[in-house]
């Protein structure tokens, strides 16, 4: 195998992997927004994906926002410049961060067997295995409603991208606060890994019981 063809193949596999990761983000973010009732349920339609019925938004503004965001995320993943994608849910009234869905993106370096995360050096995964792993995360997101505190007040959300300092940043993007929750409870969700990437998911949330002065 010549060096060029090898490079082309790696590039193809990287793009495929990035596509899988970005697609997962799309469905995961939609699921979270539906499950946490950030948007009303009638703004979502049911779609079959990963062997599940996944809810996807039909709200045009949200769709365009997510599309813009994920295209840029795809660029960053391809360049290997993004390490985290965070969906923060906050109270509209007092801007308090209530939930923080964190997706850690790790790049697996197959060539040197030294990965940036723990998923490297393993045998290549089949599409079905990846699908099953993603399915498990989506199921966990759906099931997370059972343990997460109920969002009683009106809430909004913001999505943050943790990139490297040298990453190219378009004009539509700007620096932001990391939107960290003080003394959070957190639950580690399942992870999935492709040939080139590993995605870990964590949801951290504020336990209102301890901080609420009314109680």
């Amino acid at each position: 195998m010549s060096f060029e063809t090898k490079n082309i193949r790696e590039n193809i596999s990287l793009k495929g992997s990035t596509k899988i990761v970005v697609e997962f983000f799309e469905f995961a973010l939609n699921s979270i927004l539906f499950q946490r009732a950030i948007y009303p349920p009638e703004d979502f339609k049911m779609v079959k994906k990963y062997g599940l019925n996944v809810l996807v938004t039909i709200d045009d503004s949200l769709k365009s926002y997510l599309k813009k965001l994920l295209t840029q995320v795809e660029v960053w993943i391809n360049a290997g410049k993004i390490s985290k994608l965070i969906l923060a849910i906050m109270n509209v009234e007092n801007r308090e961060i209530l939930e923080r869905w964190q997706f850690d993106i790790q790049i697996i370096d197959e060539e040197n067997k030294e990965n940036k995360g723990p998923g490297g050096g393993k045998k290549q995964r089949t599409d079905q295995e990846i699908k099953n792993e993603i399915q498990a995360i989506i199921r966990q997101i759906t099931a997370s409603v059972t343990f997460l505190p109920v969002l009683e007040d009106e809430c909004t959300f913001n999505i943050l991208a943790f990139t490297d300092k040298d990453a190219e940043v378009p004009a539509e993007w700007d620096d932001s606060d990391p939107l960290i929750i003080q003394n959070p409870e957190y639950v580690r969700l399942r992870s999935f890994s492709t040939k080139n990437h590993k995605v870990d998911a964590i949801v951290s949330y504020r336990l209102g019981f301890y901080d609420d002065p009314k109680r």
Partner: protein
Amino acid sequence: MSYPPYQRSAKKNQSQQSDQHNDNPFKPTASTKSTINFTAFSPKNDRELIEARTKIKSLEISKDNLDLKFGRLEAENKSLELKNRELGLQIEGLEKDKDFYYNREKDALKSLENLELENIKLKQAAACETQTLKDKIRELQQNLEDLKTENLIKENDLTRKVQSTELEASKLQYQVENLNEQIRQQHDISASRQKLLNETQQRLDETQEKLNEFNHLSTQLDQIETHNKKVQEQSEHIQELELRNRYLTKEINRNKELSPSIQILQHKLERAEYQLLNMNTLRREAAELEVENTTLKKEKVSWTSLLDQEKDNINSNTPYTVVKELVSRRNEIELLQIRTRSLEEQVRNKDLVIVDHESKIKELRFKYKAMESKFLNEIEASKGSKRLLQKEVEMLMNSLRSYDEEEKQLQSNFEPQKTERIQNLEKLLAEYKEALEQCENKATNIQPKHEEYPEFSELNLHSLENRVIFSNVNLFFSAVKDLKTENASLKEKIMLLDNQIDILERAVGRGEYNKETIRVLEMKDNPASKEFSLRENRLQGLATENQDLKTKLKELYQILENHPTITLELTEDNDSEKETIRVFPIQSYLNLEEENKQLIDQVADKEKRMTRLKEVWKAKAQEYREAVYSLLGYKVEFLENGRVRLTSMYSEQDDHSLVFTSDEDNLGTMQLVDGGNTEYIKSLDNLIKYWVVERGSIPCFLSSLTMDLIGKTALGPIGREMDMTSGRISGLGGNQEFPTLE
């Protein structure tokens, strides 16, 4: 269940064609009309004309009849052709069947042949297998023999090993005995040397004492001499003093007489007394010295006698030679002491060696016990094999006997092969006997040899091997220790790393990140910023409005204070009302405008939601009707005034429908009121009477109707398709639109 409409249309076309065809015989064709030429006949008279006409008519009738016949014949011909086709098809089918059966027969024959071949093969295989099995049996027998020989060889080897080990044990025992003897000799030598050493030590001590005494005496002799001198001097001095005393006394007497002063004399007396006192002490000292002198003289005498005695040992009586001798003896003593130390060290080393040997002996004893048990087991096993061999011998003897008997019986048929066989068997027997004897000998040899050396046969292993083993064991122990320590350190490391992982995981859970290398980005136009900017704008607007209102209020207060009459005018006058409007700040108007915009947006949002809900409702209603249509077989249309029209999926025509309406009480129950076609409803009178009127069950009526319709359409295409997207049903009678639920 839905069937394609083209089947129905085909049937219809067929029927239309057949109708057209059926119409033909009754209609005169244009060709027939054109063939009759009336102008060809020229009537001579009326009769002939009439006859001709009648003939023509009869001919026409006959022609018509012939046409009819022709038509019938054609129809018959067609039917016959159809029959012929059917028969042809049947023939074809039969031929196909024939071919099929012929092929099957061929296949069966082939399979039979194959089976026969397989059978032959199997037979051959079985024969081969039997042959191979026989070969195997032979091989196994040969193996058995080989194993026996191997067993014998092993036994021999074992006996050799036992003998060699025994020899080694005896050698080792001899070595141990030699070592013990050497140790004893060493002990004896060391004891004798110890004795010698003690004696020399005693002598040395004695000589040392003597030397000390001698030294002391020599010093004392010097002292005595000095004392003697002193004593002599003292005695001389005493004598002088006595002389002087005498002289002085004489002088005193003389002076007493001469000197007048008594005091001086007294002083002199005192001095003389003091001198006398000194004299007394001197006398005492002299006495003591005399005593000492006598003792020293005695010692001297004894020393001189001793020195006379030691003249043989000490060459000269000079102190130098004595001292030399003393030094040489001291050196000897030191050398002896060094030797004793070295001997003691040797003894200790020997003790250590003895301890090592004892431990080795213990280990060897243990090994010997293990070997003994092993040998005993082997002996038992050999005994068992002996028994088995005896049994085999018996069996072989029996077989020999049987062969002999056979031989006797079949002397006429005696073959040379049998003789060979018998000879072989006899050889085998002899071999077995030999083997048995060897086993017995071995068994008998092994036991006494073990009994000969019960106490010291443990040294049956090479010392070198033992050392190697011990060194290996030590190495292993050290390696195990190292590994244990390493394991402990690694465990500690793991603990530390686990703690670190826990800490890091908590940090990750808190959302911590490296601020130096990572940049946090957000889209400028994000939902949160939109919400917050909206609220901020509103807040700012309200704040400015509040500010403006405050300023206006202050201004108004000022105006009111300056012009108290204006207040009434402001409230009553229209012009003044304009002023009051001006009183409100522009910001409040802007705020209201903003609020209005927001409300408009909200309304738009609500409308959007309404449309979405309607879409959802429409989709769900469509889903519901689809389910009802596919499950119950009726298309449901909701008409005005709460009426419902049902059309079966098996209905032949579109207007074959039933209309229901709710009861007068409007309690949710339905009643049949009409149908799409009155004739169709009339055809269902019996069903309606039986089910709806008599039994009052619309579902049963609908079910029986469905069953009737499906019975009618059993031979033809079944069902009709429901176009769920447009709300149309496509069937035999074309499409019919029905209103959708919106």
